[in-house]
């Protein structure tokens, strides 16, 4: 099977985007969060709910059966609805499923939604697999990434301050994003306070709150039939998903998996790293942006910190990294995150990103990794 031929045989486009601001846990129900995003996406596309043929809801924390009680409030049209869980990449996978459904010809207009509310813990299944280790619960995600930071900084002679500058940049971007959970410009000194684990400080770790993001995926036929404004639709030219393979002992799985998934996406799109104008990566922890910039081939191993310092990954640089603020500032409400990345890329490619617009953006990438480990990469371009 070749997904490249599927997406190119019957092209798929993002025709509408909508978000509910990411925020700290509140009394607002997930239904209200989700409906806000979906209504905005429909409005953005100029579509009615009755135009939508199917829906995928990316969620990892809500529990079973989340979609229908929410989406039926737009009209109980009886369309197929499916929850998609892929850890932090749940939203990305709901987009992947929606693209696949449209590319297959089964549907012309499909909703990909991400919505979540935080619970006490993540409830991750690998901890229930019955494979005990020596860590005894001492290595939570931020420590996993603090250890990767330790290894990276030692290998490439990169300082704590250099890694922290990723967070300074992404908080600066988030300050210009009305949908971001954190909307404050932060100085390097502020970012370096409040240590959490290793060199990672509070502001170098993403907030896990609540929110929603929605995108509407459509075919050429759907765009034609429903009279959707073609000037604002962006084509999805690659949708790649991979899981962790068996790497050599000691190899960082997150970067190795990202390199493989990114390469698959580039191959599918017939594009390469130098084509990217804008990228949203899984920067749940500041070190990750450096690891993934290198794994995706945007710079050589060990170079990413210098590229961040030089402004190359700023809005206005050669490739804007996390113009939304990324997970670090926009936030990581889990289900919505991967869908929100697609919304940001579409906004950038349309030229509608206002004060955080990357000039002349034509090609963008969205990247998520999740516990498991899984990785999902999409590439979008201006048709």
């Amino acid at each position: 099977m070749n997904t490249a031929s599927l997406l190119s045989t019957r092209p798929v486009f993002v025709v509408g985007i909508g978000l509910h601001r990411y925020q700290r846990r509140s009394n607002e129900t997930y239904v209200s969060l989700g409906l806000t995003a979906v209504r905005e996406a429909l409005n953005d596309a100029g579509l009615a709910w009755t135009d939508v043929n199917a829906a995928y809801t990316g969620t990892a924390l809500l529990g079973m059966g989340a979609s229908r009680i929410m989406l039926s409030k737009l009209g109980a049209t009886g369309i197929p609805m499916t929850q998609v869980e892929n850890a932090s990449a749940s939203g990305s996978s709901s987009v992947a499923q929606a693209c696949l459904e449209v590319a297959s010809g089964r549907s012309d207009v499909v909703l990909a939604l991400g919505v979540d509310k935080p619970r006490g813990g993540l409830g991750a299944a690998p901890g229930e697999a019955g494979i005990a280790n020596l860590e005894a619960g001492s290595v939570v995600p931020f420590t996993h990434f603090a250890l990767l930071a330790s290894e990276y900084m030692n290998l490439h002679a990169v300082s704590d301050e250099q890694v922290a500058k990723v967070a300074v940049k992404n908080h600066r971007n988030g300050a210009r994003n009305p949908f971001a959970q954190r909307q404050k410009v932060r100085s390097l000194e502020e970012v370096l306070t409040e240590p959490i684990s290793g060199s990672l400080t509070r502001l170098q770790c993403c907030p896990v709150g609540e929110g929603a993001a929605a995108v509407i995926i459509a075919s050429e036929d759907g765009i034609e039939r429903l009279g959707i404004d073609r000037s604002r639709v962006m084509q999805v030219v690659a949708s790649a998903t991979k899981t962790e393979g068996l790497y050599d002992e000691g190899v960082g799985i997150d970067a190795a998996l990202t390199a493989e998934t990114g390469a698959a996406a580039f191959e599918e799109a017939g594009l390469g790293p130098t084509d990217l104008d804008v990228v949203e990566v899984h920067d749940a922890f500041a070190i990750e942006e450096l690891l993934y910039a290198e794994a995706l081939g945007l710079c050589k191993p060990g170079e990413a910190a210098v590229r961040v310092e030089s402004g190359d990954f700023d809005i206005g640089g050669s490739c804007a990294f996390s113009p939304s603020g990324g997970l670090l500032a926009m936030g990581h409400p889990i289900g919505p995150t991967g869908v929100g990345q697609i919304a940001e890329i579409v906004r950038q490619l349309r030229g509608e990103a206002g004060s955080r617009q990357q000039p002349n953006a034509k090609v963008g990438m969205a990247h998520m990794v999740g516990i498991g480990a899984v990785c999902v990469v999409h590439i979008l371009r201006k048709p």
Partner: protein
Amino acid sequence: MTIEPRHPHLLKLADPPILVGHRCTRCGRVAFPPDPYGCEKCGSPASNFEKWDLQARGSVQAVATVHRHHRPTPSTPFTVGVIELLEGPVVKAIIDSDDVVIGSSVEGFLAPEEPDEAGNVIADLRFRVIR
């Protein structure tokens, strides 16, 4: 008072303790921790695994001192390391030496928790720098 490792099947009590991994008799892959399911390299079921002793000695590849933790134990701050064992597998564990740095040689030891009301003590395998 008895001292019991948290996961007895991962260890043989010795000084330093021996880590018990598995070796796939079909493809030869050695892994730690051991699992009861199957081989990630060749797909062979765990019935083809044999127990495989590994020295709890190695060198530190990465370290992080944890300042915030979601549980009362281990109490913060504590230091976690990535340790490449002499025989290849890489593990993560707590390192109980203030002077640990990348490249330090470390060995395992049993670190007992406070006894419970019945006087039983659970112990975790931690590592410390070899002087």
